[in-house]
């Protein structure tokens, strides 16, 4: 029994293995995308706290200098500092935004591939392969008084069934079988 199952298993598992390997690649993609998203969020938070710190420094500059004559030049200096910090932080901002968007797209793409097969929008298309063979079977109404009861009976069981449920109709069915042979 186990040998036969091993043979079927090796045939079946080739198909399964291919599907499984493909799905673990997409799972990796989703993982990478989520990690990149988290990384972008973390760096955005860090950047924001950094911006808050440097802006505070800029604001404290004119407050520290109480002298009015020095205010203009200090303003110019602080403006220059602010301008210099702005370009660097702008680039960083842009980079973080880009990373967020890319990570989001990669995660979405990966999830679409993991989430299994899509169904057609057309409701009738999934029925294209359905046949009456399966449509006519109503499991709640299955009858068991069909010829399968006799056809599938093992040959040793036929002559002497010691079960107490030997019914009067059984000999009739056996006689019908004998007429066949």
């Amino acid at each position, binding site marked *: *029994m186990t040998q036969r199952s091993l043979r079927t298993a090796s045939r079946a598992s080739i198909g399964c293995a291919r599907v499984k390997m493909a799905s673990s690649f997409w799972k990796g993609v989703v993982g990478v995308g989520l990690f990149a998203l988290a990384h972008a969020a973390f760096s955005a938070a860090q950047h924001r706290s950094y911006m808050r710190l440097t802006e505070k420094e800029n604001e404290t500059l004119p407050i520290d200098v109480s002298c009015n004559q020095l205010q203009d030049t200090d303003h110019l200096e602080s403006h220059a500092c602010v301008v210099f910090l702005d370009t660097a932080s702008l680039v960083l901002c842009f980079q973080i935004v880009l990373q967020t968007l890319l990570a989001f797209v990669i995660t979405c793409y990966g999830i679409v591939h993991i989430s299994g097969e899509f169904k057609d929008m057309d409701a009738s298309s999934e029925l294209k392969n359905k046949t009456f063979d399966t449509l006519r079977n109503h499991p*709640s109404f299955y009858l068991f008084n069909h010829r399968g009861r006799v056809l599938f009976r093992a040959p040793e069981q036929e002559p002497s069934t010691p079960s107490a449920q030997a019914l009067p109709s059984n000999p009739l069915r056996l006689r019908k079988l004998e007429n066949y042979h």
Partner: protein
Amino acid sequence: ILSIPELFLLYRFTNYMRDKLRKWREENYRNSEQIVDVGEELINEHASKLGDDIWIIYEQVMIAALDCSRDDLAWSCLQELKRQFPDSHRVKRLAGMRLEALERYEDANKLYDSILQDDPTNTAARKRKISILRAQGKSSEAIRELNEYLEQFVGDQEAWHELSELYINEHDYAKAAFCLEELMMTNPHNHLYCEQYAEVKYTQGGLENLELARKYFAQALKLNNRNMRALFGLYMSASHIAASPKVSAKVKKDNVKYAAWATSQISRAYQMAGRGKKENKCSVKAVEEMLESMQITMS
């Protein structure tokens, strides 16, 4: 006992077979021999890997075993289920099904009555009682009981289809058509119900029924253009209408056109199916001869 790669393969096999069993269960396949084969092996040897799925597999294998006259397997599955779910109505119903398979209909009826006493809304037990009536050959009582059941549970698709089958067996085509209309209303995208309704209308006969049949065959084809039975049905109904003496010339011409279209579609379908095979020419010729022989001649 098994090496690592063999264990790995066995795990894959269990999953593969479990998915196959689920597909057969969900799509109402009645391939009982296969189910017994696969299910018995899974239960006996890989029970630990199945987890909680094993109970529903026990149920599926038990019903298949009753089909294949494997009473020993059915009894052991039932015992396992009884041990796990001692007071369950579902397991009692399975015990009743086993009694039905052994033709002990009175005992089965008593069991179902006890279920219904506990729970009057249990639909499964009522349906089994109707099946017992059908198995005993009492079709009119079965039809009456099924009608009463459908008055209470109007949405039960299975029951409507079963009732239509019962009416067809009794040759009461008008009522069968009514049941199929109910099914078509709730499943407008299902081409098989359209086609079965058209077949019933065609069987009833008469000009209006034939026209209706032709329309519903066309509808079935619109929903699924690969439905060969609907194509043949369209051909037959259109030919019938065209050959009838009571129709006007325009209707006759239209129906001849429909029949010709159906013929071309049939020939094309057979040609496509047979391409690449050696006997294609012979089978295509056979189809043409068959279509010619199916021409309705006025008697």
